């Protein structure tokens, strides 16, 4: 039922595709057809690095339908080095271990399972950058 919808969203959900205004360089996630800053409609594709920093977070005890295994998980407002923000779930982390300011990186995970259709929806989540992965990120930067 929602198959075409998630197919359309694959470039943002799997690759964090954003957009940049060719006229004024303003960046947008999600991508949009008109620049809010200068009005231009000449926006180009921009691939984000997938790195970020937690600006705010919340532990959720009353999830939406289809997310019932999300009780007690973390939702975070994440600031990206490209000057953008987005909201996503955190994964691979104990809720007590994360604070604002935490460095995070994007991974593709299961968002939810449509119980009637058996459709599994995948998309971006973020996990803390720790130890070796942090060093690796620093070297390649």
């Amino acid at each position, binding site marked *: 039922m929602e198959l075409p919808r998630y197919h359309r969203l694959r470039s943002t959900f799997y690759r964090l595709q954003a957009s940049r205004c060719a006229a004024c360089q303003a960046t947008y996630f999600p991508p949009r057809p008109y620049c809010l800053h200068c009005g231009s409609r000449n926006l180009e594709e921009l691939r984000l690095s997938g790195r970020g920093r937690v600006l705010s977070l919340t532990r959720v005890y*009353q999830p*939406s339908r289809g*997310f019932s295994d999300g009780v007690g998980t973390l939702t975070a407002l994440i600031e990206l080095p490209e000057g953008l923000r987005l909201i996503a779930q955190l994964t691979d982390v104990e809720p007590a271990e994360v604070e604002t300011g935490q460095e995070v990186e994007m991974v593709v995970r299961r968002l939810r399972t449509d119980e009637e259709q058996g459709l599994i929806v995948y998309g971006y989540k973020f996990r803390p950058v720790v130890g070796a992965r942090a060093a690796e990120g620093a070297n390649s930067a």
Partner: protein
Amino acid sequence: MRDVSIIGVGQTPVGEHWAHSLRDLGVEATRAALADAGLERPDALFVGNMVSGLLCQQENLATLLADFSGFPGIEALKIEAACASGAAAVRVAQLAVASGAHDLVVAVGIEKMTDLAIDGVTSALATAADADYEAAHGVTFTALNALLMRLYMERYGYTRADFAPFVITAHENAVTNPYAMFRETVTPEDFLNSPMVAEPISILDSSPVCDGAAAVVLCPSDRARSFTEQPVKILASATATDTIGLAPRKDLLWFGAAYESAHRAYRQTGLRPEEVDFFELHDAFTIVSALSLEAACFAERGQGVRFAQECHIHRNGKLPICTQGGLKARGHPVGASGAYQIVEAVNQLRGHGGPNQVANCRVGMAQSIGGMASVAVTHILGV
């Protein structure tokens, strides 16, 4: 454009109406408002409703309510602006009368939320956010407000306990409102011990899931006194929008739509904030109350919580808010709340505020907010 006045109001009690359907509630409020104006039939009906399709499997709601209220045939349309739908219906009704398109118009706000289990309601409410980039990621409405509340607390140095005055005041005011859902007081301890919905937002920071409908009748001001001795003028009516998503906003802790709609309303009247006698604000969560006070320029930035702590929001304070309990304690049947605010403001201005009457009030403001403050509708009423 013609001046527009409110000549009748009606409301159902807010609560969990197991025995009453969507149509029962809508018809009751509509007919009560018409009866208050001494009318049998309006020229048009605008129905403010957020999610009857998901909550009750009923769309084409305005046709249903015109039909069952006893006047099929009239122009009837549903108006949707998330949690601000009720106020948006009043805005559209005001436009219809001001433009000369119709003379006698009913705006009714309605929501029936308790037919579904809580996860279904949570999903339905999340449709007011960005479906692809918020809701699809399991981001609930409460979670969005929680992200904002935590940011606000860290930025301005508040604790959870500092938000208690909003809740205590709302519940105090609801005790004597016969239409309110929670007619009981809460203590600071109750507030601190309330279970979390999404940290730092607890159940007591949040307005309840409930059912209700409220309605007003509008007509041109020059005809108002032929229907009632106590018409109330709509001095201003203004809607504004912001980005649908929270994350893309330049200034996360600023309600741009609320600011814009309030200032359009101030400009329409020539009034300044200090000339407003009371403010029915959108206390869906305590953080929304704080940011609404700031956006409408009653408090400086970061001072919305302090404003409440200094008791300015009490019935006898500088700016009484939520005078009949607000969304928190009167209840928040989402698409109806904006209409309840207008009904309560009219009652205050007519001197029908009961034990919660604001003394000598002449000018009242009501602001309803939808989505993650992505849309706001402000009305200023006066006598």
